[in-house]
């Protein structure tokens, strides 16, 4: 190992001497600039998050009296418990999950079936139907909020989480249908036709053959939609008319007000809890998340 590195450094040293010293110096200088740029970038991207975490375990007086750069004098993990129970973040997380999970399941199920019907099945008017779905990506959600409010009010759905589930499903479908139709381009029609020769219907072939073939795509699209719905504020703010229905984002927005005097530690703890969920997913699936979100962008 040691010999190996020695030889390597000797090797590079040898090559350097062959070049003009000026060029080598410039190259080394360039490398330093790159390092500096990367270091600055990382500080800018990461430091706010570290500061946020450190502040979340400070007591109120520690936050107010000491420099904002200092480490916590005592580590107040109780801030998290306080945010979770007194600050109601626990309830809000539960509400978010109750809205996000059913909406996500519906989006994936309906979107995959529609993508299959639009890409694999052969019929007149399918490109027009796809265009109709695409139109939904262009129109701002403000255009549908007020009529939906009336519909939910008239049907008595206000006061439950159903408005959220339904609205998330409706607004999530355009991108999902489009992405799934794109993924189905890679599945050969012949394969599904051959499967139906054995007597299974096309619906069965859709479920048992095509869905497993696009399961990677399902994970990618599911992740993209999860982040959109979990992080949504506009729709949640419109349809949660009581405190008991608030999602994490709405709850966090009203956090300081509900507490009376601002409690900085619990506030930052609440922000950390909110960030933590996305952090864990990103930690394990970052490559898929990056691929999914950017591919959703190119098409949108």
């Amino acid at each position, binding site marked *: 190992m040691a010999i190996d590195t020695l030889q390597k450094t000797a090797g590079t040293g040898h090559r350097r001497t062959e070049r003009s010293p000026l060029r080598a110096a410039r190259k080394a200088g360039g490398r330093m600039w790159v390092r500096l740029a990367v270091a600055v970038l990382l500080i800018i991207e990461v430091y706010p998050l570290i500061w946020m975490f450190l502040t979340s375990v400070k007591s109120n007086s520690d936050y107010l009296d000491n420099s904002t750069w200092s480490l916590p004098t005592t580590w107040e993990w109780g801030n998290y418990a306080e945010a979770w129970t007194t600050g109601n973040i626990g309830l809000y997380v539960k509400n978010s999950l109750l809205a996000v999970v059913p909406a996500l399941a519906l989006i994936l199920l309906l979107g995959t079936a529609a993508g299959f019907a639009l890409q694999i099945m052969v019929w007149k008017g399918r490109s027009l139907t796809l265009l109709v779905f695409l139109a939904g990506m262009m129109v701002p959600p403000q255009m549908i909020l007020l009529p939906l409010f009336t519909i939910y009010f008239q049907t008595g759905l206000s006061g439950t989480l159903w408005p959220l589930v339904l609205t998330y499903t409706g607004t999530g479908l*355009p991108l999902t249908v489009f992405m799934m139709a794109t993924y189905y381009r890679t599945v050969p029609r012949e394969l599904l036709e051959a499967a139906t020769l054995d007597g299974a*219907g*096309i619906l069965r072939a859709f479920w048992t053959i095509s869905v497993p073939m696009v399961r990677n795509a399902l994970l990618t699209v599911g992740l993209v939609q999860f982040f959109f719905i979990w992080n949504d504020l506009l729709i949640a703010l419109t349809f949660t008319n009581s405190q008991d229905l608030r999602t994490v984002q709405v709850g966090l927005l009203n956090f300081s007000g509900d507490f009376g005097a601002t409690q900085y530690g619990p506030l930052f703890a609440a922000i950390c809890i909110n960030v933590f969920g996305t952090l864990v997913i990103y930690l394990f699936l*970052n*490559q898929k*998340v990056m691929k999914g979100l950017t591919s959703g962008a190119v098409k949108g």
Partner: protein
Amino acid sequence: MHRVLGDRRAITILLGPALLVYSLIMLVPMVWSLGYSFTEGNSIEGFTGNGLDNFSRLLDDPAVHDALWFTLKYAVVVTAGQVVAGYLLALLYVFFLKKASAPVRTLAFFPVVLPTVAVGLLFQKLFQVAPQPGPVNSLLNAFGFESVDFFGSAGSAFWVLIIMDIWRSMGFYAVLLFAGLVDIPDEVLESARLDGASGPRLIRHIVLPLSMPVLMSSLIFSINGTLKVFDSVVALTNGGPGNGTTPLTLYMFQSSFTYSEYGYGSTIALLLTVVCLLVSLAVYRVSRRDNTES
């Protein structure tokens, strides 16, 4: 042979539910909202027609002018900032970090997935003055400058908003543009280098023209998203001070839900939709022309 794939019953079963939900939640409300523009009232008190009153009010309302101007200003500045910062990062990834860029790419992308509300509250505290100067102000103090009350005036609040949104999204555009830069064939770069092009000249004359398509699609995506800005503003400034940082989306929300004027809210939503369509159309036409020229 295509008989099984043309099975009408199967198509209905597969497409029907998605089309039904999409129509009920999106298509029908869009048309309905159009109808609201000619009424006043709300869903609790009922609606009465008022002809074109909402439209004439829209034209004369100084708050609408301010909100429209803010929306356009925000969209242009953030789009430019996002795409330029993302492009610089992408160049850094491709030409300087090369194979080692993966961890930096992953880390710089992370803020994209953070909830906007959390980021907004975080930046509020990063830039705050009282009761305790946040990191930005204490950094200013350390260099001997006075603390700045960033959220005290619309001008400085606007720039904090811009910085926050560029911070949030530059890693995203970097990855998007990185994918375009990686697609440039090595032979093209190599032959350009042999012809004596290097550094800035290589980037200006070879790399930039070749990455035009992906730059254009980033631009379209960015402008389309930034025109609809809502979460960032609500979480960071809530439109304040006064209505100094209120975009159309927020003004529509306030008209509708704070003042219960659904008719007027729908008219503002319609204005927003028209602006989005016009801008997308304009950018699309410009990008098409560029592509045919080159």
